[in-house]
Each structure stands twice: as structure tokens, then as C-alpha cells.
């Protein structure tokens, strides 16, 4: 492949925006309740954006919307300057510019294909060199021994399978890599291997990355910026370190305080257990979705839905009573 850009492979200028979501709303046809209730965020070239939230926050739906697998009810989704690729339309090249690593390493590899076949397929389809030596290079890239080439996925461990999935996704040189809970199904000692691998690869391959996880500590290890989601909305977004050390949204505080830690004095001891109760079972039509669990909620929170507002140059919060400075 030539190093210069072409129509299918524009060179992405550093600092430019590769993915934009503007007030995106998504609901499934079968349900009245919206999954995404107005999500706004951007991904810049070369950065890793961590998306964190608990079940029902819509983080997986977010990824699938960016890929164009789910249609939006309203709002704008822009990927690399164009529409999301989707599955049906678009030439293979535009689809290949953004790739996904699935959560379950057991399900994302065809159980009846050998590792070599699994890795060769995307190369062949997209017109890349797909020789055995190229496949071996891919295995080297993710730190796997060449002996796995003729194995079936069932013969590999979860960590090894996830590395194959990463190698496959990166083999066609995507500009954007989406990772859906890539380490959640792995043992903690193996999690660290894969986390380190992702960090290294991003440095060497230069892709932009969205890393979705329910585990705030894991996301802290990979992300430059973090977006905290709750029930279909981004409630806070900003630089990882500052969001985690000085969270402004009450939910971010509760989330950070709930993360199990090895410290003897857990971070933000005073924040612990502040998010009482559970996510509401009935849909709220107005106001802040977090208000039923929030200790600083007022009557304003009942009626007025907070919007993402810039707090500092690198932080946005959707809250009527943001905490901290």
C-alpha cells in the first residue's frame, strides 16, 4: 500500500475529528424506551476515548450506531467525514476504515476456520497481501506464537482469541478501532496483557480508538479522555485523569467511589454508597435520569433535562448542580 493518501484512504491530520455524534437518539423498534437519549461526543485522531457505564447505559448501542448497524431516530453521526458504513451499503474500503473488536472472544471467531484462514480472509477480501508470511507478521504484532496458525479457535484460551480478534481487526489498517468490553471476559492476569497490547498497538499503528467498558479502572489504563454514560446519556466527558480525580457529576463520583480498590483508604471514602437505590424501572419523560438516586437533586432536576455544558476547556458535564470546583 502506498504511504500517500488516496480517496479511499485519506491521511488523517492529527487533531482532526474522526467520529462525531451530535444529539443522537436511538430506540429499538420493539420498545418505546429510547436507548440513547441525545448523545453528543467526538473522537479525535490518535486518541483513545473511554466510554464507561453500567448495564443499560447504552454503551454497546453507541458503538453499533457509530458502525451504522442501528439507525438513529434523530441526530447526526459522522465517521471519517462521511456516514457510518453500515453493513449493506458502502464499498468494502469505507467499511474497513472502522473496525470492531467484540466482547466475547469465544463467539467472534468462526469455530470451523483455522486461525490462518480467519486472519487471511479480511486481507484477501480487501485486496491486501494475504500470504502465510503476512499472517505470521500479524501474529507477531499481537504477541502470539506461530504455532497457533493451524489451530481452531476452541483450542486457544480467551486471551489468545482476543488477540486474534484484535489482529484481524487491525490487519486491514482501520483508522478507527472500536472495542466493546474487550477484556471483560478474561482473567485479570490476562486482562493486563491485552490492555498493554492495545496501548502498544495504538502507539505503533496510530489508530483512533473508542474503548467501552463497565470497569472504570480498566478504562483508566487506556483512555486519554473518558465519557461517563448513564441511561442513554453522556453525563460527563473530559480528560481521564481530571474526571477521575475530580469528578463533577454526582454519578461519576458514585461510580469512582464504587470501584473496588487495593488502597487501604479507598478513594473518595466519603463518596461511597452515595448512589442509593437502583436505576428506575419506569422511563422518565422529563428531567434528569439520575435524580432518583442523586443526593443533590432539586426540583429543577425533576423538570429540566440537563444538557452537556462546558465547564473547563477540557470538561463537559450534564448536571444542574455539578460538584467540585
Amino acid at each position: 500500500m502506498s504511504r500517500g493518501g488516496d480517496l479511499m484512504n485519506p491521511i488523517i491530520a492529527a487533531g482532526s475529528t474522526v467520529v462525531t455524534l451530535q444529539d443522537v437518539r436511538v430506540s429499538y423498534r420493539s420498545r418505546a424506551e429510547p436507548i440513547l437519549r441525545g448523545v453528543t461526543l467526538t473522537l479525535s485522531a490518535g486518541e483513545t476515548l473511554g466510554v464507561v457505564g453500567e448495564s443499560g447505559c447504552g454503551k454497546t448501542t453507541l458503538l453499533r450506531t457509530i458502525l451504522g448497524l442501528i439507525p438513529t431516530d434523530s441526530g447526526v453521526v459522522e465517521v471519517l467525514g462521511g456516514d457510518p458504513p453500515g453493513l449493506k451499503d458502502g464499498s468494502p474500503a469505507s467499511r474497513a476504515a472502522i473496525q470492531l473488536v467484540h466482547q466475547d472472544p469465544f463467539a467472534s471467531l468462526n469455530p470451523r476456520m483455522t486461525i490462518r484462514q480467519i486472519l487471511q480472509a479480511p486481507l484477501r477480501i480487501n485486496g491486501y497481501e494475504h500470504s502465510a508470511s503476512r499472517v505470521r507478521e500479524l501474529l507477531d504484532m499481537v504477541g502470539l506464537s506461530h504455532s497457533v496458525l493451524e489451530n481452531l479457535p476452541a483450542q486457544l484460551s480467551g486471551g489468545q482469541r482476543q488477540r486474534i480478534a484484535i489482529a484481524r481487526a487491525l490487519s486491514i489498517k482501520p483508522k478507527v478501532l472500536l472495542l466493546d468490553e474487550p477484556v471483560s471476559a478474561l482473567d485479570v492476569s490476562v486482562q493486563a496483557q491485552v490492555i498493554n497490547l492495545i496501548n502498544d498497538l495504538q502507539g505503533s499503528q496510530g489508530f483512533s480508538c473508542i474503548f467501552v467498558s463497565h470497569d472504570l479502572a480498566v478504562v483508566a489504563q487506556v483512555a486519554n479522555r473518558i465519557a461517563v454514560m448513564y441511561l442513554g446519556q453522556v453525563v460527563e466527558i473530559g480528560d481521564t485523569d481530571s474526571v477521575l480525580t475530580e469528578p463533577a457529576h454526582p454519578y461519576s463520583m458514585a461510580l469512582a467511589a464504587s470501584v473496588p480498590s487495593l488502597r487501604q483508604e479507598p478513594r473518595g471514602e466519603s463518596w461511597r454508597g452515595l448512589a442509593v437505590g437502583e436505576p428506575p424501572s419506569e422511563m422518565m419523560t422529563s428531567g434528569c435520569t439520575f435524580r432518583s438516586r442523586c443526593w443533590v437533586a432539586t426540583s429543577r432536576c425533576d423538570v429540566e433535562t440537563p444538557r452537556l455544558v462546558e465547564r473547563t476547556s477540557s470538561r463537559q458535564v450534564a448536571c444542574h448542580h455539578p460538584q467540585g470546583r
Partner: protein
Amino acid sequence: MSSLRSRIWVLRLISSTAGVLVWLLLAMAAPWLAPHDPFLVVGEGLAAPSWHHPLGTDLIGRDLFSGVLFGARTSATIVVGVAAIVVVIAFIVGLVSGYLGGIIDDFLMRIAEIFQVVPRFFLAIVAIAYFGSGVDRLIVILGLTSWSGLARVIRAETLSVRESAFIEAAQLFGSGIFRTIFREILPNIAPTVAVYLTLLLSRVLLVEASLAFIGLSDPSSISWGYLAGSSQAYLRSAWWIAVFPGLAILMAALSLTSLGDAIGRRERK
């Protein structure tokens, strides 16, 4: 799986495959193996099994051993012929239906229902009455009335595999419809489909034998069912005329079902 059960499974797999292979080999080699033309009168009628006629003779003195060998040929021809028709139609309908879904799926499944609802045996009788009883006609009739069950199985399997993450991954890196169906989905549904196919074919064999039993087989080719059926009146005295063809039917059908069962157990292991 414990090692004892594992060994039993291997035995079962080997014996059923051997059964099917022996059947096919005998079918192919019948013209050379059979000592006599099965239609020729070569001995006394109703002669018990002897050195000259290992399986005895039938009512009018035709050698039963040759009859059984040529019967193997007929039944194998019919089963293979039906398999060819059924596999082609069922795979096309099932894969397309399962993968594309929507209106195409509804349409194809309505057609499959029509074919499924038809009572196969009686339709065969009517068709034979109308079009004659040649082997080729029988293959077409049985083929057309048997594909819909297999198509449903293929469709169901395709539907479940289609939702897998690895299929989505394939679509995301640009795998087109044909490649996704044949390279990604097909290898994953093949074992289940193979199981169902062997069961289907053994049933086809039994239907053919039943039709021949009541005299509706092709008169120009020997069929096991015909041999058994033609000697109904003599069962008590000349048991060999019914027993040997009957055993042949039994073993052929059993080999098929056993093979299917063994493949199924391997997948469940």
C-alpha cells in the same frame, strides 16, 4: 465423554459408515457380482436357500441372491437421486430464507409449507397412477415431496448462526453475501444438516420399499420391497423370500440412521 462411551461411539460410526459403503458398493457391482439375471427363471420355484441359490428362489424360480443385489442397486439409485434433488433445493431455499429473511423468507417458507403438507405416500401413488412407475419418476416425486423438511432445518440453523458475532465480524470486514453464506455459515450448519439428511434418506428408502411392496415399483427394475411383497402369500412356507429382502431394507435404513446419530453425537460431545 468417558472412554467407554467414546469407544462405543467410534464403533458405531465405523459400522454405520461401513454399512452404507457396503450397500453402495454392492449396488455398483451388482451386474458383475450377481450370478444370474434376477428376472430370469433359473431354478425351481420356492426353493430353499442352497449352494446354488444362497438366498433361495422366489415363486417362479428367480434367484433371490441376484434379486437382492440388484435391489440394492435400485434402492441406492433412488436414494442418491433423491438426495441430489433434496440437497440442491433445500440448501438454496434454506440458506436464502435464513440469511435474507423478510419477504423472501416468508414467500419461500409458504412454498415449503405447501410441499410439506402434501401426504407423500398418497401423492406418490396418485402420481404413479398418472405418470407411470419408472425409477426416474419416483426419484422426482420423492425428491419434490421431501425437500421442505430439510429446508426448514437449514433455515433454522442459518438463522441461529447468522446472529453470531463472527458473522458480524465477517460482514464488517467486507465479506459479501455469497462468501458469508458459503464460507462462514455453511461449515457451521453442515453437521446438523447431515444428521437430518441421513434420517430423511432412510425414510425415503422406506417409502420406496412400501410403494414397491404394494406393487407400485418400476417393473423393469428389481426392488427389495417388490421381492418381499410378491411373496406375501408364501411367508409361512418360503420365509426366505420375505426375510432376506426385508433384512436388506432393515440394514440399509439402520446404517443411514445410525450414521446420522453418530454424527449428531460427535457434535454434542
